[in-house]
């Protein structure tokens, strides 16, 4: 028998870090099963995927976790030179699988697996190991990986289908619910924001588009309760975080006459629950002081709301967390002092509360209800006024680029509405449902017309297009305009066809003129333009232009089109022709070089 000496205390809580991590895994389990069900099993049953694709969500998650694990093992082996027999326990104590596991859960389902592996590697190496390993990192490693992937590969992922699983791709046009909020005009309505995806219950359960693991608020809530009960997470952070977002969006909604559904919609979208419960509470990168955790939660809420409403990046949750990670040190410093002094902490809270109210009110009032402001997504390209009749050519931002349409309004009534150009994904649905006619028929109360499910963004863009046009008819100027719409000018120009005539090549090119399309017939011989003729146009003074030798001048000065003077009395038309020719030459140049 030997009396040994040790430092106390001699009883210890039976909680330990391994248990904490184990409980974390348990709480993630239902979430992983759910995503398997939603993104794997259901699309398979609907016949959208094959058996292997059915398991993709699981393979995805396991790959993420495994990559982290392997990265860390190799790092320990190669750089820290840890013995083989200690390697496993060292990696185990470093809880190696988590960065990749969490990363896989916050990425869109259509992320290619190679990108996931790269991201998971970056998350582990840059986000964790280079900071000094477990316990020393400032930023949430998984979010470092996510940041890397979204900044480098978001386009590839979007082209691959983005957030939508194979089933959703067929039924929902448009992006995640929050991406949708930035497409609708103003603050949006229940029909615009919630209905396309189902009801708020679907939001709560999680049958909405979103990242692999973050759509089910319900399961996150279950996990939250479990993790709080088992004392794994800093429960104050998610509680305050979600409440703050709720409160702020409630104020914003209430000010704009929206019901309680609006703040609910906001907290149930964009992976807020998942982010708040799992990412914001990452122990290493969140404050250790209880007051600090409350302040941290408040600021996360404020930032998320700011990101959602004031930037073009509507999801906001992960960015907010990464941003706040930087301030953990200073929050802890302030709050460790505030603990000693009740009144000091009181002022801290008053300051936070004021900030919450101010930001909410600022955002709330920025949605002007009877807005005379113009919709930034709407553009008038040309406007032809004769008495009470105005013929418009306008564009409105749709799901893929702009939708261009001609609209004629007479005496306040839409008498003609034609879509000239669009690249929308499921436009055939608009046509088969004859949505255009629905809009024309319902023109007296456009706001109340439902959008088409499956093509929400497109249909609502068409609706807005008409609303905006009518608004302009009522309030806008009554003067002719041709906007030299730089964004779209290239789209207006088009080489329609090319004919071979022995050595000559004849091109038919079109551009937008004063009254719609001008089509020129351009003959090229040996890389030089030999002749320019008008194939068709609605312009008023074409005869005069031909008579004045304008076209011959152009042929002669084809290397310096700008030096040719416009025909007086037909300036607009002449300029349109010049513009067309310049574009043609440019395009032809490029073509030649190829």
């Amino acid at each position, binding site marked *: 028998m030997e009396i040994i000496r040790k430092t106390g205390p001699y009883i210890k*809580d039976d909680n330990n870090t391994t248990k904490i991590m184990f409980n974390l895994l348990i709480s993630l389990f239902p979430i992983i099963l759910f995503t398997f069900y939603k993104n794997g099993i259901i699309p398979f049953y609907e016949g959208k995927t094959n058996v292997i694709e059915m398991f993709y969500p699981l393979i995805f998650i396991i790959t993420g976790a495994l990559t982290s694990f392997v990265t860390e093992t190799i790092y320990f082996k190669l750089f820290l030179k840890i013995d083989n027999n200690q390697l496993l326990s060292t990696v185990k104590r470093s809880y190696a699988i988590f960065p990749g596991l969490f990363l896989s859960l916050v990425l869109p389902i259509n992320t290619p697996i190679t990108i996931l592996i790269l991201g998971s590697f970056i998350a582990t190496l840059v986000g964790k190991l280079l900071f000094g390993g477990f316990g020393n990192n400032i930023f949430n490693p998984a979010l470092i990986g996510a940041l890397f992937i979204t900044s480098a590969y978001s386009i590839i992922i979007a082209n691959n289908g983005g957030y939508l699983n194979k089933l959703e791709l067929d039924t929902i046009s448009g992006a995640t619910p929050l991406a949708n909020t930035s497409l609708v005009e103003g603050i949006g309505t229940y029909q615009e924001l919630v209905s396309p995806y189902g009801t708020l219950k679907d939001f709560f359960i999680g049958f909405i588009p979103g990242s692999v693991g973050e759509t089910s608020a319900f399961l996150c809530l279950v996990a939250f309760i479990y993790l709080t009960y088992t004392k794994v997470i800093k429960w104050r952070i998610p509680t305050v975080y979600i409440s703050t977002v709720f409160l702020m969006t409630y104020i914003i909604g209430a000010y704009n006459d929206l019901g309680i559904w609006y703040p609910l919609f906001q907290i149930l979208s964009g992976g807020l629950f998942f982010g708040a419960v799992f990412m914001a509470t990452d*122990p290493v990168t969140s404050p*250790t002081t209880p007051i600090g955790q409350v302040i941290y939660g408040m600021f996360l809420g404020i930032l998320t709301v700011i990101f959602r409403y004031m930037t073009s990046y509507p999801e906001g949750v992960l960015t907010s967390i990464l941003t706040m990670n930087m301030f953990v040190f200073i929050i802890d410093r302030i709050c460790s002092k505030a603990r000693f002094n009740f009144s000091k902490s009181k002022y801290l809270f008053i300051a936070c509360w004021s900030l919450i109210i101010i930001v909410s009110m600022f955002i709330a009032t920025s949605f002007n209800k009877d807005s005379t402001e113009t919709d930034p997504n709407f553009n008038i390209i040309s406007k032809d006024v004769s008495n009470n009749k105005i013929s418009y050519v306008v564009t409105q931002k749709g799901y893929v680029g702009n939708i261009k349409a001609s609209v004629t309004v007479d005496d306040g009534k839409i008498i003609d509405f034609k879509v000239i150009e669009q690249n929308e994904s499921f436009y055939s649905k608009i046509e088969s449902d004859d949505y255009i006619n629905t809009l024309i028929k319902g023109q007296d109360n456009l706001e109340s017309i439902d959008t088409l499910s499956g093509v929400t963004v497109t249909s609502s863009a068409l609706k807005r297009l008409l609303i905006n046009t009518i608004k302009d008819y009522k309030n806008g100027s009554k003067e002719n305009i041709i906007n030299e719409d730089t964004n779209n000018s290239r789209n207006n120009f088009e080489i329609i066809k090319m004919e071979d005539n022995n050595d000559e090549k004849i091109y038919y090119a079109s551009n937008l003129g004063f009254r719609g399309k001008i089509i020129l017939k351009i003959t090229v011989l040996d890389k030089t333009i030999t002749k320019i003729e008008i194939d068709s146009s609605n312009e008023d003074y074409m005869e005069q232009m031909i008579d004045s030798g304008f076209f011959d001048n152009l042929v002669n000065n084809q290397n310096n089109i700008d030096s040719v003077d416009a025909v007086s009395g037909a300036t607009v038309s002449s300029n349109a022709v010049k513009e067309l020719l310049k574009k043609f030459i440019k395009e032809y140049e490029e073509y030649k070089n190829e």
Partner: protein
Amino acid sequence: MLGIKIPKYKSISLKKDFIEYKSPDKVYIPLVNGYDTDVTILVKKGEYVYKGDMIGKTKGLFRVPIISSVSGVVSDFQEMSYAFGDTVKCVVIENDKNDNYKEDKEIKKNISDYTKEEFIEILKDSGIVGMGGSSFPTYVKYECDKKIKTLIINAVECEPYITADHTIVKNKCQEILETIDAILEINNIDEAIIAIKNTNTELKKYLDDFIGTYLNIKVCLVPDLYPMGWERNLVKYIKKKQYENIPIECNIIVNNVSTIYAMYEALKYKKPLTERIVTITGDLLKDPINVCVPIGTPVKEIIDVVGGYKDSNKILLVAGGPMMGKTVSENLVVSANLACVLALSELKNDELINCLRCGKCVEVCPSKLSPVLIKDNVGNKERLKELLPNRCISCGLCSYICPSKILVREYVNKAKENIKN
């Protein structure tokens, strides 16, 4: 935040009634009070001392007498282990087992029949100090000009395993109530409140049986948390008051219940503090029990008397409770502030892992410190000044709760030292 629930392990030492072990062959009276080892020695080798004789006196701010707990011959001076973990010089007295006092002790009929000055004199001469662990001389608390409104009697005993206070209340309930009543009268105090845990139904029953006639004494049930027995917590919970340094700022005095019983012996029989009840317990003891022993009794002897250790390779011998106590070598001796001796097996699952920054240590700290931040900044004096490690009461909760099994309290202790120099 008053504290947290922790396991109690109390019942194992309450299975049997307490026993007395009054006649060790030798006692080793430690020449120390609290941390104060600067003692004037008043006896020489070979000198005969009576029980209750003053054999030394501390030289510090407070003069506390060191008293012989037996009668016999001073045979030697020897270094022995003491409750705070270190060794101290002890006076070794060969016990003649006669319990001879210098003069015959008269019995005071009515113990409230003292003036305040006499009362304080008796406390001083009897060497009565806080028996909960602090060893703070009791007379100092009463010797102040401020009006005392409330006397809180601390019978919470929030540390796990220890049942010494429990035993004394259970066995000396009447005497304790009588003493409290006398203290109230002598010092003109308005009320007394006995604090016990709300889970301790046994004590509640005993107290209720006897308390009827004492109108100024109440029992207050406090939550079963650790460290609920900390003075600051008691005052905060019972009187809803907070003080800067000592409770008297709020006209409150807090005394440990064992100290109250020592006062009884002093007031009733003029007997100084020479013995105390010690809980001998732990999972490696065959027969955990409470034992009443003379100050200076070697713990090894007591353990043998109560049945000894279970078979085990390694034993943690702890002076005090498992939270605040310290491991000691086997030559530990009983002192006035030693409430408990533990024989524990080594902790399992004690593997050290990097700090998770879970914040649990911050959450539990009853002094509102941020132990993890103190740990991070243990070498950074400037930052430590804001973090106030000196407010740490060494309760050990931060180390107890840490899921990474980091000994956080030791970092705080280190910080206390660093900030001093």
